[in-house]
C-alpha cells in the first residue's frame, strides 16, 4: 500500500526542455503525429495495384483520419498520371444506350467544341447544298416521274373508261365508275330505262374497270416507295458532298483514337440519313422523303450530335483525389436527369451526370463509411462497381423496378479507382463479420491510434503540432507554459501520464478557445492561464449534471457521507459519461449478511439495473469468499449488495473491490471510514485490478469533500496499477501536498481492508488459520458460525408440521 506523493499524481511537462519562447519559432510538426502504423498502412495500400486493395481507415473521431488520408493520397496522386476524360455520346444503333468515349486528359472539352463547330458548319453547308439548282432539278425529275407515272396509269384507266362510255368520278374515299351521258354522269333513272342487256354490259364493263383501277392502285405504293428511295439516295449524295470533308477533318484530328474515329463514322451515316435536321425548312417546303416529325434524341434532333463531357481533367495536375461528402447512390455512380416536357419527363444522354466514382476514376475516392452505409443502396452500388470494375449507371428506380418508363442505359465506364473508407472501428468489425464481400474488397486496414507514447522529445513534437495548428488557423502563438499546459491536458485526455492523446480535433478546439480567451485579455500570446481558462470553461459548459448531482449530495438528497464510519457501508466511485464529458461521483455501497445458502445477491442485477460486467464482479466476490475462508465447511452466507440511490443502470466492475470491502466489513462487523472512497476491480485471489476513469473518480470525490471541507482524513483508494494513469488537476495535487487529501494505491484487498479498518488483514498460517484479532479471522469466524448454524439445523432433521395444521388436516 502506498500513500501517493504529489509528484505521482500528475506528470508535469517540464518547460525547461523547451528552447523556444513561443510556438511561432517552431517549424510545423508532421501531420500524422503518433500514427506511424496508420501511415505505413496507407502507403502500403495505395502502393498495391491489384484489385481489392482498397483501404478502410478506422479510428476514433478527431484523430485526423481525413487529413492524414487526404494528405498522403494527394502526395501520391501528384506523382501519378492524369487519367483520361470521359464523354457520353449518342448511340446511333441503340438510342437508349449512350456510348461512353474515352479521350486523353483535357481532350473531352476540345472534342465537344469540335462537334459543336461541326454542327454549325453542317447547318450552313447542308442547306446550301440542298438549295442548289442541281439538287432542285434532280428532285423535280424524281417527283415528276412519280406523278407522271401515277397520272398516266390513272389516265389510262380514265381513257379506257371513256372509250367505253364510262366516266371516272372522284368519291370522298377514292374513285367510282358510272355510265356517261355527254360530259356528265348518266342519271340513274335513265340507266334504269336502258335495256337489261345494255345495263348488264355496262355493269360488266364497270366491273372490269374497277379491276383495272384496283391493279393500278396496288402498283402505286410500289412506285411511291421507289421514288422515295431515289429521293433518299439523292439526299444522301447531296449531303455527302457537304459533310464528308467536315467530318474527315475531325476524323484525322482524332485518328489515334479508334473509338472516336468509329463514332465519327456513325455520325457521318446519321447525318446522311437525317440531313433534314440541318435544313432551315418551312413546313411546306419539306422535301419529299424527309420525315421531320420524329426525333429519338430529344427536343432538338441536333442534340444527338452533342458531346456530354462527363469528366474532364483540364485543370488537374495528377491523379484525382475525390472526397464525396454525401455518398448517396446517385452521387456515387452518377445519375440521369430528366426534363419536364408537356407534362412528361424526358431524358437523353446529355442529361447524364457524373458520380464520385467517375470523378475519382484513375485516382482515389475517400468516403465516410457511416454515410455510405446509411444511404439506401449506396453500399451495394459501391461494392458492385468495385467488384465489376466498371460503373454501371442504373437509377434506383430502374434497379428496383419502381419505374417502367423508357429510360437510358448508358454504356458502362471501366473503373480503376482506389477507395478509402473512413469509419469507426465498430463499422470495420461489423462489416467484416456480416458482409462476406467486404474482406475481399477492402484488404488494407488502416488503424489509427487514440494516443501516442509520451517520451522525451514527444512534448516538443506536440509543440510543433500546436505551432502547425495555430499557423493554419491564424491563432496566436503559445508560450512555453501554455504549451506545457496543453501537453498535460493531452496526457489527461489520454487518461495516462505516459501517453498523449492524438485527438487533433479536441486539441485544435482547445487552442481555438485558448486563443479566444487571449483575445479577450487583449494579449498577443496564449499563456497557461488562457489554456486553463479554456479547459475550465469547457468543463463548466458541460458540467450542469455534475453540479446538480453534487448539489443533491450536499443537500442530503443523495446520501454520501464523507466523515464518520459504519459497518457494511462504503463509498464507491463511478464515472458518468454524458456526451463528450466525463465526471466522477461517489455512490454509497452497502452490504448485509445473514445465514444462507452461500449466495451473494447483487440487487442491481436482480432488478435488471446491473450490466454484465458488474454482475461478473459481484460473482467474483463469491469466489473470493469461498476460496479464502472456511474452506472445510459449506459457505452458509446470504449477502446482499446494493448501490444505494442508483436509479439508472450500473455497469463495469470497478466497484467490485468496494463491494468486497463492504461485505468483509459486514461479516467482520468492523466499521469502515466514510471519509474514504474506493475504486478498483478485484479478482478471486483478492488482487486489486486497474479500472478506467481513475482521474475523474478521484476528482469527483475530492470536489465533494472540498465542498464539505477538507478534513485531512479524506482520500481515495485506487488500484496500484492505475498510478501511471494519474493526471489529476492542480487542486487535488495541491491538497495532497498540503496533507488535506490522500490518494492511496493498493494492490490487494488485504492492503485495502487494513487501511480502511485500521486492523491488520491477517495472513493465514501454515494450517490455514488466520491470526486472531485480524479482519480475516473475524470474517472466517463469522462464516464458520453460519456453517455451524446450518449444520445444527440439518442435524435436527426436517421441521415437524405445526400441530394445528395437522389437526386441521385430520378433520
Amino acid at each position, binding site marked *: 500500500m502506498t500513500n501517493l506523493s504529489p509528484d505521482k499524481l500528475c506528470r508535469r511537462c517540464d518547460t525547461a526542455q523547451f528552447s523556444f519562447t513561443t510556438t511561432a519559432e517552431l517549424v510545423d510538426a508532421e501531420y500524422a503525429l503518433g500514427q506511424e502504423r496508420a501511415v505505413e498502412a496507407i502507403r502500403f495500400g495505395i502502393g498495391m495495384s491489384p484489385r481489392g486493395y482498397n483501404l478502410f481507415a478506422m479510428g476514433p473521431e478527431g484523430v485526423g483520419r481525413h487529413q492524414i488520408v487526404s494528405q498522403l493520397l494527394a502526395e501520391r496522386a501528384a506523382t501519378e498520371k492524369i487519367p483520361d476524360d470521359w464523354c457520353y455520346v449518342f448511340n446511333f444503333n441503340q438510342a437508349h444506350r449512350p456510348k461512353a468515349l474515352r479521350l486523353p486528359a483535357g481532350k473531352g472539352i476540345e472534342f465537344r467544341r469540335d462537334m459543336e463547330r461541326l454542327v454549325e458548319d453542317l447547318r450552313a453547308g447542308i442547306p446550301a447544298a440542298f438549295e442548289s439548282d442541281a439538287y432542285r432539278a434532280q428532285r*423535280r425529275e424524281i*417527283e*415528276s416521274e412519280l*406523278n407522271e407515272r*401515277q*397520272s398516266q396509269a*390513272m*389516265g389510262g*384507266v*380514265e381513257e379506257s373508261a371513256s372509250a367505253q362510255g364510262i*366516266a*371516272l*368520278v*372522284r*368519291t*370522298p*374515299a*377514292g*374513285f*367510282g*365508275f*358510272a*355510265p356517261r351521258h355527254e*360530259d*356528265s*354522269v*348518266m*342519271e*340513274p333513272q335513265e*340507266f*334504269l330505262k336502258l335495256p337489261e342487256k345494255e345495263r348488264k354490259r355496262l*355493269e360488266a364493263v*364497270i366491273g372490269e374497270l*374497277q379491276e383495272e*383501277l*384496283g*391493279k393500278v*392502285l*396496288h402498283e*402505286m*405504293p410500289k412506285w411511291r416507295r421507289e421514288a422515295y428511295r431515289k429521293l433518299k439516295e439523292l439526299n444522301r449524295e447531296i449531303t455527302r458532298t457537304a459533310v464528308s470533308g467536315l467530318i474527315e477533318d475531325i476524323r484525322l484530328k482524332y485518328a489515334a483514337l479508334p473509338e472516336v474515329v468509329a463514332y465519327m463514322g456513325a455520325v457521318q451515316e446519321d447525318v446522311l440519313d437525317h440531313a433534314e435536321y440541318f435544313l432551315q425548312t*418551312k413546313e*411546306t*417546303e419539306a422535301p419529299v422523303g424527309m420525315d421531320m416529325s420524329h426525333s429519338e434524341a430529344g427536343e432538338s434532333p441536333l442534340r444527338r450530335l452533342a458531346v456530354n463531357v462527363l469528366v474532364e481533367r483540364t485543370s488537374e495536375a495528377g491523379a484525382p483525389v475525390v472526397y464525396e461528402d454525401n455518398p448517396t447512390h446517385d452521387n456515387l455512380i452518377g445519375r440521369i436527369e430528366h426534363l419536364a416536357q408537356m407534362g412528361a419527363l424526358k431524358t437523353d444522354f446529355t442529361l447524364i451526370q457524373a458520380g464520385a466514382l467517375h470523378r475519382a476514376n484513375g485516382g482515389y475516392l475517400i468516403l465516410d463509411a457511416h454515410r455510405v452505409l446509411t444511404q439506401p443502396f449506396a453500399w451495394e452500388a459501391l461494392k458492385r462497381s468495385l467488384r465489376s470494375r466498371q460503373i454501371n449507371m442504373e437509377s434506383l428506380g430502374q434497379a428496383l423496378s419502381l419505374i417502367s418508363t423508357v429510360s437510358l442505359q448508358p454504356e458502362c465506364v471501366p473503373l480503376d479507382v482506389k477507395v478509402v473508407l473512413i469509419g469507426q472501428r465498430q463499422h470495420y468489425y461489423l462489416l467484416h463479420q456480416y458482409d462476406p464481400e467486404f474482406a475481399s474488397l477492402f484488404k488494407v486496414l488502416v488503424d489509427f491510434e487514440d494516443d501516442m507514447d509520451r517520451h522525451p522529445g514527444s512534448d516538443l513534437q506536440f509543440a510543433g503540432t500546436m505551432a502547425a495548428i495555430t499557423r493554419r488557423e491564424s491563432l496566436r502563438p503559445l508560450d512555453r507554459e501554455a504549451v506545457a499546459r496543453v501537453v498535460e491536458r493531452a496526457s489527461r485526455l489520454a487518461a495516462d501520464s505516459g501517453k498523449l492523446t492524438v485527438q487533433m480535433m479536441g486539441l485544435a478546439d482547445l487552442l481555438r478557445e485558448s486563443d479566444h480567451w487571449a483575445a479577450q485579455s487583449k494579449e498577443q500570446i496564449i499563456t497557461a492561464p488562457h489554456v486553463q481558462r479554456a479547459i475550465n470553461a469547457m468543463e463548466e459548459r458541460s458540467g450542469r449534471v455534475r453540479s446538480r448531482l453534487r448539489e443533491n449530495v450536499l443537500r442530503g438528497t443523495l446520501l454520501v457521507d464523507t466523515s464518520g464510519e459504519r459497518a457494511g457501508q462504503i463509498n464507491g466511485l463511478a464515472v458518468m459519461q454524458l456526451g463528450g464529458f466525463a465526471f466522477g461521483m461517489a455512490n454509497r455501497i452497502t452490504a448485509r449478511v445473514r445465514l444462507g445458502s452461500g449466495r451473494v445477491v447483487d440487487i442491481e442485477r436482480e432488478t435488471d439495473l446491473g450490466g454484465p460486467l458488474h454482475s461478473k464482479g459481484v460473482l467474483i466476490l463469491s469466489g473470493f469468499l469461498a476460496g479464502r475462508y472456511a474452506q472445510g465447511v459449506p459457505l452458509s452466507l446470504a449477502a446482499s449488495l446494493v448501490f444505494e440511490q442508483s436509479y439508472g443502470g450500473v455497469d463495469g466492475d470497478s466497484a467490485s473491490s468496494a463491494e468486497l470491502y463492504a461485505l468483509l466489513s459486514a461479516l467482520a462487523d468492523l466499521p469502515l471510514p466514510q471519509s474514504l472512497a474506493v475504486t478498483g476491480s478485484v479478482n478471486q485471489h483478492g488482487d486489486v485490478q486497474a479500472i478506467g476513469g481513475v482521474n475523474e473518480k478521484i476528482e469527483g470525490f475530492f470536489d465533494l469533500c472540498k465542498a464539505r471541507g477538507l478534513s485531512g482524513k479524506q482520500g481515495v483508494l485506487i488500484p496500484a496499477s492505475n498510478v501511471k494513469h494519474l493526471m489529476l488537476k492542480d487542486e487535488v495535487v495541491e491538497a495532497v501536498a498540503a496533507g488535506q487529501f490522500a490518494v492511496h494505491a493498493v494492490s490487494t484487498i488485504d492492503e485495502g481492508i487494513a487501511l480502511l479498518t485500521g486492523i491488520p488483514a491477517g495472513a493465514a498460517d501454515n494450517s490455514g488459520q488466520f491470526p486472531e484479532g485480524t479482519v480475516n479471522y473475524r470474517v472466517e469466524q463469522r462464516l464458520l458460525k453460519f456453517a455451524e448454524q446450518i449444520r445444527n439445523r440439518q442435524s435436527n432433521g426436517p421441521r415437524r408440521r405445526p400441530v394445528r395444521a395437522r389437526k386441521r388436516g385430520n378433520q
Partner: protein
Amino acid sequence: MLRIVVMQQAWPAGDKLLRAAAGAATRMNSELTGLFIEDSDLLKLAGMPFACEVCFPSATRRELNTQQLERTLRSLAEEARRSLEALARHSALRSSFRVARGSLLAELLASVSETDVVVAGTLSRVSSAPGLSVFCVAGTAPAVIAELIDDLAPWAYGSIALVVLGADADTLPAWEVEVRKRLARKGLARRVRVLAPGDERELYALLRRPVEGAG
C-alpha cells in the same frame, strides 16, 4: 375589299389549301368564303344500282348509296365549315361558308361571277398530287393574282391553272404578260398556265390537254 372563295373538298391536301388561302386572305385583308360542292356526278353515281367506289390507296371496294353519300357529304361540309371558322377566329378573318350542289366546274365558274377570285385544288380527276387552280374574271388586277399565286404556290405540286373568264382576245395577251412578268419575279411564271374557256365544256377540254413546259 377583295373577296376570295376557296373550294373545300375532301381531296388531298385540302386542309393545306385552306390554310394557305386563309393566310393569303389575311395578308391581303380579304374576305374568305369557303365553298363545298356536292358533286352532282357523284350523287348520280351513288344512285346507280351497282354503285361502288374503289378506295385510295387500299384499292378495296365499297358499295355506295345515295343516302349514305349524302350523309357523308353533309358531314364533310360541316367539317369544312368548322375548319374555316376555326382558322378565321384564329386570324381575325372575315369569313363565310356555303354549300353548292352541281357539277364541280360549273359551280366554280358560277362562283367566279359572284366574287373576285376562286381558289381550288387540283381539277384533275386522276392526279393524287396537290394541285392549284385559280379562277378570276378578266381585268382582275395582275398584282392581286400574282400575290395570291405566290402565297399559294409553295404547297402545290406541278403546274398551276389560272382560269380567266370573260376574256377577249384583244386584252387577254397584255393581261397575261403583266401577270407573268410579276410571277417571273417570284420564279413562278413557268409553273402557271393561263386558260381562258368560254364555258364549262371548253374548260373541261382545256384541262384534259397535256401540260407543256410546266413543272
